[in-house]
């Protein structure tokens, strides 16, 4: 097992977009350090470079700059095989011409491990993954979820596996089995204490799987690394706030005056605890609040802001409302029993302790 560290990582490539057109893609000055034996999720929108980063860690591509360190040792120049990294792909990869046993044994056979040792190891791994019954079956005939288990099994069968990289491994799995397979992944990770890097664009997958979540933004930069709780409660940037949560954090442009936050169409008093220094910084602030923390009332209340209800989405357990006031649109999660009607007014309040303030893409409060 190993800790993984990327130092000043730099990579670009040109993607062909059709005749003559190219779009260059770039990851620049990226620094990450992930601890040994951790379940790590690399979360970001599609096309932000997650897979590129993953392929660089496994050695399938070589970065144009910077270095990759496992346990502090530079592995940038090493081949995929020498890095002892396993990778599980989006589409389950099994060797059709072998049975499940052969698939699991394949990496060990390539390493010329003695036969009885292979047998012992295959049985051990099959036991962990609960696929003992499948060992004799042709791998090509399995359902995707089992193929993905075999694929993972090939990854963890080498005793010296430094890390297992998973590239959106649940995408093609039947939704009913996704949950079971994710539990299995997590269990294997715990049981073997393997460093696992799980790439996904699905925040739910990321947050439920990982000890540590690293969020990449569209421009190929690391937006934040932290525990799921930190990511949710303390977003460093408006992007993280908006990207995490369903729906994501409400972000509104505002300026600060002597009396409070000015949103042009309405204003609210300055929350307690916001220090003078921050306040003096001027305007161009971004005000953030999560939909679940927006308080709502059907009647006018003192100091609460009147919004118009635009859309009501009823999930059964709660309602998500889209509210409008002037140029601002926000979402609020409100109790199921509140009888809200579209186009009617709703009064809202932003509790002080849940207000986040950003300036120039950084958290200031």
């Amino acid at each position, binding site marked *: 097992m190993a800790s993984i560290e990327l130092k000043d990582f730099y990579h670009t490539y040109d993607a062909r977009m059709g005749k003559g057109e190219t779009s260059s893609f770039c990851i620049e000055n990226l620094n990450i350090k992930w601890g040994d034996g951790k379940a790590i999720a690399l979360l970001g929108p599609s096309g932000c470079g997650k897979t590129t980063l993953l392929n660089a860690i496994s050695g*399938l591509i070589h970065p144009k700059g910077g270095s990759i360190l496992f346990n502090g040792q530079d592995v940038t120049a090493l081949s*995929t095989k020498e890095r002892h990294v396993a990778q599980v792909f989006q589409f389950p*990869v099994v060797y*059709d011409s072998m*049975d499940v*046993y*052969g698939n699991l044994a394949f*990496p060990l056979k390539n390493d010329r491990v003695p036969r009885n040792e292979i047998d012992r190891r295959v049985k051990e791994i099959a036991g962990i993954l609960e696929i003992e019954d499948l060992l004799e079956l042709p791998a*090509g*005939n399995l359902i995707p979820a089992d193929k993905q288990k075999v694929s993972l099994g090939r990854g963890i069968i080498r005793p010296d596996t430094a890390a297992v990289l998973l590239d959106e491994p649940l995408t093609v799995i039947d939704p009913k089995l996704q949950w079971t397979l994710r539990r299995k992944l997590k269990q294997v990770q715990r049981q073997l204490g393997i460093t696992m890097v799980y790439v996904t664009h699905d925040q739910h997958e990321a947050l439920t799987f990982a000890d540590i979540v690293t969020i990449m933004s569209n421009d190929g930069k690391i937006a934040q690394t932290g525990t799921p709780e930190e990511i949710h409660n303390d977003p460093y940037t408006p992007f993280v706030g908006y990207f995490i949560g369903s729906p994501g954090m409400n972000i509104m442009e505002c300026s600060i005056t002597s009396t409070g936050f000015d949103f042009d169409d309405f204003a609210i008093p300055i929350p307690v605890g916001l220090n003078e220094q921050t306040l003096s910084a001027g305007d161009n602030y971004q005000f953030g609040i999560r939909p679940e923390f927006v308080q709502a009332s059907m009647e006018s209340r003192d100091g609460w802001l009147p919004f118009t209800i635009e859309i009501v989405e009823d999930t059964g357990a709660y309602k998500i409302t889209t509210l409008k006031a002037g140029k601002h649109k926000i979402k609020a999660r409100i109790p199921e029993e509140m009888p809200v009607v579209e186009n009617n007014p709703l009064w809202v309040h932003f509790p002080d302790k849940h207000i986040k303030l950003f300036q120039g893409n950084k958290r200031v409060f």
Partner: protein
Amino acid sequence: MNNRAWLFLLPMLIIMSLSAFIPLMTVVNYSLHYIFSGSMPQYVGLANYLEVMRDSSFQNALGRQLIFSTMVLVVQIPLGIMIALALPKKGTGATISLVLLGIPLLIPYIVVGIVWRLFTQSDIGVVPKVLALFGYAYNVALDPIDAPLTIFLLDVWHWTPLVVLLCYAGLQSIPDAFYQAAQIDGASTWKTFRYVTLPKLRPVLILAVLLRFMDSFKIYSEPLLLTGGGPGSSTTYLSLFVARKAESYELGYAGAVSVIYLFVVVTFSFIFFQIMKNLGKGEHSR
């Protein structure tokens, strides 16, 4: 059952019966008769078949055909795979190679035959001249080895590109992840080919083997133009043999040969298909 579906199939069934089924049945009918020009056919049961089976000229033609078809598969399939693997995967190079490979497939058989005839003709051809420089007296018209070998090489030149194109398309459809996984699993180049490429090419290879096998039986215009089936009968393959018999109005005999011919092709194709369908699927590793 949806009865209307049959309505949509009807035009196809009519065309099929006119173009294939009725002629086939006619041939079967012929094969059961002695037919003399202008006189009434006389029903003889399986007598024609017995005659064909006993005829050493038929046995020789069939043997020659089977050797030719086997060589076609043994050489063209691996060669096709190798060329497909060696081709550039994308870019201008790929386009150019594919166009070049397509050219032999676009030329009409007759033209192919004539071009090769000009190349190999003993008095004016460039092939005999060049080979003479190396001390080899090549003569396609007289040498019973040179003639079939030339026909075979012509076929390799003409039809290997088809195998290449099929394999190339098959290779393109293998997702990169399979190769990346093999790389991560530490597989050698050979093992990657053996356990990733080859199994993934199976459907395409089944098609290639069947097409090439069936087509190889149809070889006709090439020997006709190049060697006229000779010297002796060294390039009289089954199609040419049948045609010669039909031309000499031995219609009953030719009909019997045709039916046996069809039986041989269908039987072998079926066997190949059955073998390849399950070859190396989920091999037990213990």
